[in-house]
């Protein structure tokens, strides 16, 4: 299969290793991976803030570029939700409406792609550590992703998965929300950090780097030894 990997702007600039791991994993599985040079952002920040014209300015090139893709795998639940669920809303009643629905049917978040499309759960990975998994809200509720990451982690050798309390409660990132309402965002993040720490895990893992950026930011500030890591990084460990 030829897979178009969509790497969101913050993964590109701040967490490139996440994208690198994804490429390596997919290539090892025997697929061809394309990463488009031209597109860099799904347009969610403007969309979430209500500036839909400006969001379309960013989203339209993404829509056009991905039209010919066989499968689009997105390196984050929130950007995956943007492409799959919100593009049809963003482009409703525009000439691109049809294209947005067509793209939507081809979009997958990374872990969900492995499990539900490629039907693979064992990547031969090994990661000897106690970890706890955080469900990013967009992946969880917009894309219905709950089991896939856990099925993948189950097959990682020597990994012990413990669930935290209130695991489905939002970490408080929420995109521009984190900057516009920092006091609420921080409180929510502190609750998430406390719940994660309580599990005694060494690593907090998620399929969304944006959540991890926020949670790690709080962990580091409080010198909490809990380390954050993206699911793809674990799956790429031998």
């Amino acid at each position, binding site marked *: 299969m030829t897979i178009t990997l969509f790497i969101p702007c913050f993964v590109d*600039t701040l967490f490139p290793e996440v*994208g690198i791991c994804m490429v390596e994993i997919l290539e090892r599985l025997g697929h061809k991976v394309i990463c488009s040079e031209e597109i860099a952002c799904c347009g969610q920040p403007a969309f979430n803030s209500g500036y839909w014209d400006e969001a379309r300015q960013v989203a339209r090139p993404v829509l056009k570029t991905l039209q010919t893709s066989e499968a689009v795998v997105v390196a984050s639940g929130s950007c995956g939700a943007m492409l799959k669920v919100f593009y049809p809303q963003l482009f409703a009643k525009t000439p691109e409406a049809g294209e947005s629905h067509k793209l939507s049917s081809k979009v997958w978040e990374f872990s969900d792609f492995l499990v539900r499309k490629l039907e693979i759960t064992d990547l031969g990975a090994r990661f000897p550590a106690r970890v706890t998994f955080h469900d990013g809200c967009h992946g969880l*509720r917009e894309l219905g992703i709950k089991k896939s990451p856990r099925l993948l982690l189950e097959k990682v050798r020597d990994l012990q998965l413990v669930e935290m309390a209130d695991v489905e409660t939002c970490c408080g990132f929420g995109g521009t*929300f984190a900057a516009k309402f920092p006091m*609420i965002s921080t*409180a929510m993040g502190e609750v998430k950090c406390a719940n994660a720490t309580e599990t005694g895990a060494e690593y907090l893992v998620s399929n969304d780097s944006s959540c991890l950026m926020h949670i790690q930011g709080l962990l580091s500030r409080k010198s909490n030894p809990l380390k954050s890591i993206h699911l793809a990084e674990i799956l790429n460990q031998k």
Partner: protein
Amino acid sequence: MSSSFQQFLTDATRVAGDIRHRGLMQTALRKYEVARDRKKAAFSDWESARDAAAETKWEAINHLDEHLENLAQKLESRGTKVHWASTAAQAREIILGIIKSKGACSIIKSKAMTAEEIHLNEAMEKAGYEVVESDLGEYIVQLRHEPPYHIVFPAMHLTRDQISELFEKELGSAPTREPEELTMIARRALRSKYITADIGITGANFAIAETGMISITENEGNARLTAALPKTMITLVGLEKILPKMEDLALFLPMLATAGAGQALTCYNTMYGGPRQPGEVDGPEEYHVVLLDNRRTELLADPEQRDALHCIRCGACLNVCPIFRNVGGHTYGTTYSGPIGSVITPHLRGLQEWKHLSASSSLCGACTETCPVKIDLHHHLLHNRRNASASRPSFFERKAYQVFAWVVNRPAIYRIAKQCGRILDPIRRAVQGTVLDPVKPWTKTRDLPPMPEQSFKEWHRNRK
């Protein structure tokens, strides 16, 4: 920035940082979740129940005129006086008019969020009447001169010690840490009020069009007493409370109890079909039902968000919302808090003044997931944001997104921007926390990862 927004930020900052409040909410809401999940599991198919409830409310709201006419006609046929209030002011006027015409002095009230909405108590007190809230939680916040904290649990922000102190001060009772004793203190204090009140005012959970009945759900029995003893009874009800048929309650009453409080069924579910009828031994001689619009018809006229009128005011969305949990009910500064409040308040009280309620959400979607009538709550927050930006865009924010789009659509420029970011990163670190820090809202409480030497796109290009 509207004054409501400024107040919101001040209050949110204070409450979100209040660790004691955080613990109180967590304890209360975890208890609720356990009870709710147990009762949800009693349904063999909760999701289908939600579909059915959503469809029923869709039917009700999208044929609202027919149902309201039916309701009014049925109520009137049994002697109830039906009043129609387009605005809060009209509703207050109608109710004060009734009170005055009866030569009344004292009023007992059971829980009514619509009464909060129109600031009825203030108006009645200003006119010189004694008003007593009979619901325990409402009674407590009334004594504290503050609004309810939660639409179903008005005093959830208070500890038993705070309530004990309050009763000591206001009622002269002895201090106690026992919730049972505190409840008995309130019960004793309110007993005589039921008996002597001239007027009983209630809200309503449902208005049954088919049979002309007002359905009231409660646990304490205070609404039952409010509707039994005073000579005149008034029900204030939002016109969206319509339910088409009486038998629909077979589904709605259990769903309301399950989602709202983790109960199989609330203690008292009562249908009132009129004043005392010939042959009946007690009950009000006069029954007035005041139908309240107060801009609900404006929300009705927005087909995209019309389903927000399906709300049965169960409070489930408040219970699951991490925003509500961290900022508390009072921070919203308006009658309806939590996700439903964040959706409807811009419609009922002004988009530009209240858009911040729709903005202050991470859009996690827990509300939409839990809503028993499947209102598309978190997506409506997005719709409100879009409408607010379209009618009054922020110059700078819009420019920022336009500049971002321009940069991101030009790979060469985007590359240069990233390079600049990398060069400036150490400088940003150096000024972190100071007035020069461009990302101060973030760095005040959180660290930022350093910008890696090589971006993903660069790695990918070098591979080739």
